[in-house]
């Protein structure tokens, strides 16, 4: 810069001036730059850093898995799977395989048509339809719904810009219609106020145990590079997802399927309105709760409320003659009668303002208490039952579980109606003895027989054996509470008496199972139709336990309003036999080793005892 030779002072001052101008210029420039630097670093630094962080921060939802529903052996009844919806951005796709209007790759076409040609074979959609979907200036078009992740992988491997996916979960029910009314249906997910998707169960256990099954989604925020890799040592915060709890049921899916297919076939055959099969063991663990009509969970297009109901718990009905067992149990336990007590049963019986009949015309019959039950005589039951006060009978009805809901907490469950003696109207005092004028659900009806199978001790019915948390720790549910209802001796006498029902002179020879002693009871009741508001049609039922000498299983078969055949013995009996035979084999129950009880059904050497009666009793309507 400085010159070697000193300049004379009186020379042209221009160089000096030039120097100053330069200096000022440089200083000015530096000041501007410095100022800007101060502005950026001092004032806007935080805002800029935040913007940069936002650009490279990515949020990912970590999805929680809804709990599974499994049967007693771990067979899956309901599970959640991941599905993808394919979304297209037509505006981006319009430039497929093009750059500045020139084709990039010779192999592929260009624009929507080119993209569709690639996509259509993978997705299995018609190419023209797909082209139409991909054409447009909008930014969102749904191309496919609910494809498997594997298929989405293939789509994503094509690498078409503008094709993205949205993750969905889908609930699948491998056992289909067999257990859909029990397990329930999960409707479409909805978005709540916080923007989280919430499953909306429609029915069954999915709805009852929603709080257990539903998980909580997590969130991961991390800094990502352009290629999608996580930037090492960058900020990262993770909220772990919490999976739902899985339910282990007491249900045996094989029995459930067997029961469901048997009752569905019978409902179709008899033109019944609905049908139910309940299978439980003597500790009242529910092994099957089948209900027809049922719904195919893969096809919810024509869903009706009736198809969603599990009628075993949600429908109450007047049980009819199967409730005579309660009256008999009370008579034996109170000591007013024994199985051999003698009754002279007239052809008709006048009580209060009504004349009662049996299901068939007869003169005076000499029957024992066992005979009254075997032939399902209404009049005989009244003669036995009226030896006790209404309060005593009411106490037994309640002790056997009638009139109060089970502890299953199933959605829509009904507790049935059992009137208190002080509220009886007309002939109700007598009709409740043979099961009219009170209503129960199928599980309550089966529960009476399980109590008798369990030597008089009633266990609260259970449906859920245990739960397992997301870590897989299994927690057994507490066993149902037990109460003694009748003595072991009374229970045994009742089992012996009920063996005659499937005997030759009983009302349900169709229900006999070779090799096993069966104790059971038919029911053919007048059905109260709530739509019509009056009695119309019948409820045909058969409930039984086997083996009668060492009871293991109880099966209840109930048909509502069958049109072609409404007798409990001949309509429900065969279903009982079919299902019980299968269940005994499936559970590995050994055949009976004891001879049949063969209690005397008549007394006084009456030849009339030889006559075969093949019909169940039709109870008289209660004067409501």
């Amino acid at each position, binding site marked *: 810069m400085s010159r070697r030779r000193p300049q004379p002072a009186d020379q042209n001052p221009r160089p000096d001036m030039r120097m100053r101008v330069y200096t000022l210029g440089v200083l000015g420039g530096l000041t501007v730059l410095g100022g800007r630097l101060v502005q950026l670093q001092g004032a806007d630094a935080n805002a800029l850093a935040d913007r940069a962080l936002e650009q490279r921060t990515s949020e990912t939802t970590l999805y929680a898995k809804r709990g599974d529903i499994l049967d007693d052996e771990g*067979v*899956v009844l309901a*599970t959640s*799977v*991941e599905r993808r919806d394919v979304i297209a951005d037509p505006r981006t796709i319009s430039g497929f395989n093009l750059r500045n209007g020139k084709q990039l790759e010779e192999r592929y076409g260009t624009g929507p048509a080119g993209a569709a040609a690639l996509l259509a074979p993978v997705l299995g959609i018609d190419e023209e339809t797909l082209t139409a979907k991909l054409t447009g200036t909008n930014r969102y078009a749904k191309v496919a719904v609910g494809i*498997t*992740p*594997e298929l989405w*992988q293939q789509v994503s491997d094509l690498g078409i810009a503008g094709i993205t996916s949205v993750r969905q979960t889908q609930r*699948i029910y*491998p*056992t*289909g*219609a*067999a257990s859909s009314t029990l397990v329930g249906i999960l409707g479409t997910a909805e978005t709540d106020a916080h923007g989280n998707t919430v499953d909306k169960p429609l029915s069954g256990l999915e709805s009852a145990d929603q709080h257990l099954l539903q998980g909580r989604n997590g969130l991961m925020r991390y800094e990502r*590079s352009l*290629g*999608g*890799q*996580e*930037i*090492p*040592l960058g900020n990262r915060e993770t909220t772990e997802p919490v999976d739902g709890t899985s339910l282990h049921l007491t249900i045996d*899916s*094989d029995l*459930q*399927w*067997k029961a469901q*297919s048997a009752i*569905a*076939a019978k409902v179709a055959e008899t033109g019944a309105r609905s049908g139910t099969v309940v299978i439980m063991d003597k500790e009242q663990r529910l092994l099957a709760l089948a209900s027809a009509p049922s719904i195919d969970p893969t096809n919810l297009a024509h869903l009706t409320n009736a198809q969603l109901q599990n009628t075993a718990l949600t429908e109450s009905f007047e049980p009819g003659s199967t409730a005579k067992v309660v009256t008999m149990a009370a008579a034996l336990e109170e000591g007013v009668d024994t199985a051999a007590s003698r009754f002279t049963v007239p052809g008709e019986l006048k009580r209060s303002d009504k004349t009662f009949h049996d299901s068939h015309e007869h003169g005076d019959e000499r029957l024992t208490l066992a005979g009254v039950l075997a032939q399902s005589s209404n009049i005989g039951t009244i003669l036995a039952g009226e030896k006790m006060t209404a309060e005593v009978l009411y106490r037994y009805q309640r002790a056997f579980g009638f009139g109060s809901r089970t502890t299953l907490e199933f959605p829509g469950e009904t507790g049935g109606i059992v009137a208190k003696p002080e509220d009886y109207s007309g002939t109700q005092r007598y009709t409740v003895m043979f099961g009219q004028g009170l209503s129960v659900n199928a599980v309550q009806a089966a529960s009476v027989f399980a109590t008798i199978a369990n030597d008089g001790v009633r266990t609260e019915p259970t449906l859920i054996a245990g739960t397992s948390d997301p870590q897989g720790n299994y927690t057994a549910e507490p066993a149902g509470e037990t109460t003694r209802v009748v003595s072991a001796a009374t229970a045994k006498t009742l089992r012996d008496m009920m063996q005659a029902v499937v005997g030759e002179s009983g009302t349900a020879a169709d229900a006999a*199972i*070779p*090799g096993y002693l069966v104790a059971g009871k038919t029911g053919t009741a007048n059905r109260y139709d709530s739509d019509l508001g009056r009695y119309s049609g019948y409820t045909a039922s058969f409930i039984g336990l086997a083996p009668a000498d060492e009871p293991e299983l109880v099966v209840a078969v109930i048909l509502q309003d069958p049109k072609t055949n409404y007798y409990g013995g001949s309509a429900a009996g065969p279903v009982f036999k079919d299902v019980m*035979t*299968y269940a005994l*084999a499936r559970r590995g129950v*050994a*055949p009976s*080793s004891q001879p049949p009880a063969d209690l005397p059904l008549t007394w006084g050497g009456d030849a009339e005892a030889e006559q075969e009666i093949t019909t169940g009793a039709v109870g008289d309507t209660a004067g409501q």
Partner: protein
Amino acid sequence: MSQPLIAARNAPVRQLKTSAEARPELQVVTPPVVRRLRLPLPVACVLLLTLGLLGLLMTNIAIAGDAYEITDLQVQSQRLSNEQQAVAESLAQQSSPEQLARRAQQLGMVAAPDPVHLSEHGVVGKATPAPSPTASAAR
């Protein structure tokens, strides 16, 4: 000047307690051999800095490389879990009682009629031949 130094300066010089006749002999000692660095100090500093920076760079490269590897493994893990889910789903579908029954019927199998039991009392029950399969599928 700090206090200790002033104190030291003003302190009386301690005399060695030697006899006046025997004066200490002073000898010339050779200085100890100083290990000379082969490298001049500035070069050493630069080298150390360079090595440090190089190490840092290598570590960073390794971490970045691992990030890529993690991403690749995550993709692979996603693929495998998709596959696993698909297989589990298909197993659940095929092992449902309904499907098993249908497959058995397709193979011409029928449900067993009344089973016969062998017990200590001999044969219990009566063996009946299975009905020949007809088109009436129990659905």
